[in-house]
């Protein structure tokens, strides 16, 4: 850095020409010229006035030859740092620090004067539970780390930070617990993040797509959560967590299929009750995946499987429906997906209009008009409802492709088709890994320890064994 402060300031001014909000304040202490530089929207004016300016005025009265040292020693600010390159200067400037340049010094001081411009901690919205902690991550990195550190008070909590993104300079923290985490996995995650070279990282989704093999599978291999307690459970199970500034969603690595059936509430329930819920979730995973396919297979190829009464019932309902069962199912599934997507985007005050249209027009009227059969409505309804049991949206969205495959298989070959697609699904699952962990673990490969908290949950005592 240049020693002549005027020259330095003019070069900084030139460099930040387009940024209108950088304030340069000149001040003379003793006979030395100093500059106070800060980025107005990111800094708190209170902090600057009362902790920087006020202190400096006091310091002006001291008689010390080395001004840099005097300021560093006496300024009333909890975080003071010396910097000596222009790059550092710009970095801290854009992070909301106040820079003090002193004439004749090759080093500058930067002081923490960040403004609190994020929302306060609120209750989780996408992962609601009626028992369990009610705090959720926010868009502020420090707060998020705080929520985790509040729960894990240990020196072993290892946080490795990165600043990535050419323009955004986003803070990325990789958390793990020393001794629990597998070092190979941590190394590979750190390497992957190190190699990220993007213009900007706005949220955790970008990191997620960059570090997992994005389109190898429609199923997620990284879990996202907005609950600090889920993050802590994951850390204690030896997982790696990535927290990204400006993103209220943390990434949990690695995540197997089994992880998506768990909720934070599981630790509250008795293991027998939790087992029931788990079982229900696994069943509904297959229901949402396969019901339309199986139904199509049954009514277009394999009618002999149905009892006569049921067959007659179905046949009566199908009477007069002009489309083949596959097309009928496709229409209803598309309608449902459109409704669901609409429901996510629409502001909540017009949600009731959507539900009326959905329930009345697509359900009742479509049946009355003879476009779809009532059974099909039931099939699609159970398919849709079963999908709602999962908190991770990616898994429901991924299931849609396979549901479609099941339907196509069923419409080409009946139950044989369903079986073919099912085998394909199993092959797909077994070939999938999440950062080296097999996706079907602990079922395949069998893990006697983890299996106790999978399809069923064993009691706490048994899991300890």
């Amino acid at each position, binding site marked *: 850095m240049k020693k002549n402060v005027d020259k330095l300031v003019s070069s900084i001014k030139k460099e930040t020409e387009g940024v209108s909000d950088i304030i340069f304040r000149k001040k003379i202490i003793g006979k030395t010229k100093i500059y106070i530089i800060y980025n107005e929207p990111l800094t708190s004016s209170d902090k600057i006035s009362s902790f920087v300016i006020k202190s400096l005025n006091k310091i002006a009265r001291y008689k010390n030859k080395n001004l840099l040292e005097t300021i560093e020693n006496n300024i009333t600010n909890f975080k003071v740092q010396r910097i000596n390159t222009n790059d550092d200067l710009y970095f801290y400037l854009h992070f909301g620090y106040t820079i003090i340049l002193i004439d004749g010094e090759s080093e500058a001081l930067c002081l923490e004067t960040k403004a609190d411009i994020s929302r306060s901690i609120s209750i989780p919205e996408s992962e609601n539970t009626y028992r369990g902690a009610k705090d959720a991550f926010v868009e502020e990195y420090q707060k998020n780390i705080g929520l985790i550190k509040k729960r894990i008070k240990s020196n072993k909590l290892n946080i490795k930070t990165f600043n990535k993104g050419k323009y955004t300079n986003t803070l990325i923290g990789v958390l793990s617990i020393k001794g629990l985490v597998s070092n190979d996995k941590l190394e590979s995650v750190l390497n992957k993040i190190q190699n990220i070279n993007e213009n900007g990282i706005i949220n955790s989704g970008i990191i997620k797509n960059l570090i997992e093999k994005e389109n190898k599978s429609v199923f997620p291999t990284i879990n996202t959560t907005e609950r600090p307690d889920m993050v802590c459970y994951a850390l204690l199970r030896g997982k790696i967590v990535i927290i990204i500034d400006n993103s209220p969603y943390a990434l949990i690595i690695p995540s197997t299929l089994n992880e998506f059936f768990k909720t934070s509430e599981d630790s509250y329930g008795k293991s027998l009750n939790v087992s029931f819920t788990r079982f229900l979730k696994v069943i509904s995973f297959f229901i949402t995946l396969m019901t339309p396919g199986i139904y199509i297979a049954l009514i277009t*190829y394999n*009618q002999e499987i149905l*009892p*006569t*009464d049921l*067959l007659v019932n179905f046949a009566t309902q199908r009477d007069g429906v002009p489309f083949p*069962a596959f097309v009928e199912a496709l229409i209803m599934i598309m309608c449902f997906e459109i409704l669901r997507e609409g429901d996510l985007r629409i502001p909540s005050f017009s949600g009731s209009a959507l539900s009326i249209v959905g329930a009345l027009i697509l359900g009742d009227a479509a049946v009355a008009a003879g476009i779809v059969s009532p059974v099909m409505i039931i099939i699609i309804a159970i398919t849709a409802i079963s999908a709602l049991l999962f908190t991770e949206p990616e898994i429901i969205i991924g299931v849609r492709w396979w549901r479609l495959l099941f339907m196509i298989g069923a419409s080409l070959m*009946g139950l*044989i088709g369903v079986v073919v697609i099912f085998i394909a699904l199993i092959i797909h699952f077994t070939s999938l890994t999440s950062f080296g962990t097999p996706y079907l673990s602990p079922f395949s490969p069998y893990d006697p320890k983890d299996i106790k908290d999978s399809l069923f949950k064993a009691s706490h005592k048994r899991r300890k064994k």
Partner: protein
Amino acid sequence: MKYIKIILFIFVLYTSTGCYNYRELNKIAIASAIAIDIDNEEIEVTSQILNTQKQSSDTNAQNSSTNFHTYTSKGKTIQEAARKIVLESPRRLYINDIDLLVISKEFIDKKGIDNILDFFLRDSESQKHFYVIVSKDCKAKEILTTTTPIETVNSQSIAHSLESTTKYYGRNVTNDFETLADNYLNKKRDIFIPSISIANESKKANNKKNIESTNATTGLKITEDFVFKNEKIIGVLNNQESVAASFIDNKIDHAVVTTKCDNKNYMSINITKSKTKLSTPKNKNQINIDVIFNANLYDINCEKNLSSIKVMKEIGKNFENYIEKNIKKTLNKTIKEYKTDIFGFEDFMYKNNTAFYKKNKNNWDNIFQKMKFKINVKLKSLEKGNIYKTVEREK
């Protein structure tokens, strides 16, 4: 290469199975029963098609159509006749889900049952779990056209009637087609098939008016079992003998047995549990039939002191003897009179007394006639019910 493997794999699955046949549900005529008659050397197939037309959504509206229709067509083979139904019906006949197969006695007398078995067994798609019944004193077609009360589809009415007869009456009438074919073709035993007839026959039988009165003028009734010798009907078993046959076959779930308690009056028990064990001593032409059963006393019309153990034992003995006598009678009738093996004793001896069977294999018919039976019926527990005495007003 990976994709070629997957495609090959799917292709093999695709082609190596029988159940590949696309048919939309509203393009098929679902048959619930098939009746087979013979008419001037031509086979007449009647199929009962369930009405799958959408009913009016107004529940108060009177249903104008019946719940089923029947189509009849003739041909030289069953398949020809069955396919001819498309000439009348708008949809293709779908017989994979039938509940009932009715064969007329006339057909069996003339043609046997081989060709019927062939038709149904050859079809790779059809399920084989339907009941088989023989129509007595009427055409099989008439059975399927008779309307029945309570159950609106008469084939289901018959099927359910057969099921409850087996379960609560003790007659074993629910041999499904597969067991029947297995027993018949593998020569495990001679078969017997229950018969059905139209009670109070009148012209109204196939009319909806028949079931509009509270006491349906015409009804269907399960009557005696037809006993087969090879593929021909040789004789009948009446209700009592049919129950006794179930005892030998260990097929009793519940049954009501009635016998005399003194010279004039009767008493009944309801059998709640029964187990029959067949055994044969090595190298002897003998079969031991051991029946052990539990029962509830239901109905007793003569004065007896039921609190006395001795009396209860006596009553029990009465029933044991009665059942034993019936079993003996039934065995006599089938073996001595009809010379058939409806209980599969030949198969039983082959499995359990192999040496003896092999020695006498060539002369089996004679040996079989001389077979000895040692019947041992034992009432394990007899419950009195809620009251201890016979009902009688105090004097």
